[in-house]
């Protein structure tokens, strides 16, 4: 069966520090991968999605970036965090469309 992992589960970082969140999927190959951010009490905002290794599409201009170095690995990064980057970050995978399966999320607090 397929599983999706995200780490860390929680993170507290100072403004201006770098960020690296990792997402890995097991039990499938060539999945579509997605990064979302959810502000408190709000819906999900799609940040990045990828249909293959090295193929990244950005949905919202910001100081975040994403990379897909391996088929089942998706990384969200920032060189310098802003206060507004605080939120709940969710990774999801999809078998080439339709239903998306979400990881447990990372709660990021930027102070």
């Amino acid at each position, binding site marked *: 069966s397929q599983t999706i992992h995200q780490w860390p589960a929680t993170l507290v970082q100072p403004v201006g520090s770098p960020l690296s969140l990792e997402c890995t999927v097991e039990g499938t190959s060539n999945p579509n991968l997605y990064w979302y951010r959810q502000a408190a009490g*709000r*819906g999900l905002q799609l940040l990045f999605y990828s249909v293959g290794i090295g193929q990244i*599409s950005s949905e919202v201009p910001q100081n975040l970036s994403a990379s897909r170095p391996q088929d089942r690995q998706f990384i969200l990064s920032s060189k310098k965090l802003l206060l507004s980057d605080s939120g*709940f970050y969710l990774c*999801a995978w999809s078998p*080439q469309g339709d239903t*998306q399966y979400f990881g*447990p999320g990372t709660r990021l607090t930027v102070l």
Partner: protein
Amino acid sequence: SQQGEEDPQALSIQEGENATMNCSYKTSINNLQWYRQNSGRGLVHLILIRSNEREKHSGRLRVTLDTSKKSSSLLITASRAADTASYFCATDFWGGGNKLTFGTGTQLKVEL
């Protein structure tokens, strides 16, 4: 924006009652999906209804889709305290490239 909008934003009912949540969207879709999110957790897929379907059932869940009105509803029958969560609709719209656009969610509270 193609974002779905859920209505109501919050809903509080007693255990055993039915809960109905509505979702409206703006453009033509391939499918519409409903997800559930328990507080502080990831989203769990509940049900998918395609644009050529009008109604779908899964256990205590019933979803309807009216493409002429660009709206969908999720009915949870005989609700339980464990159904307390936020519910989101998500649309896969034509030309969207396998991306989902999520609504703002309905917070459901089921009280004993």
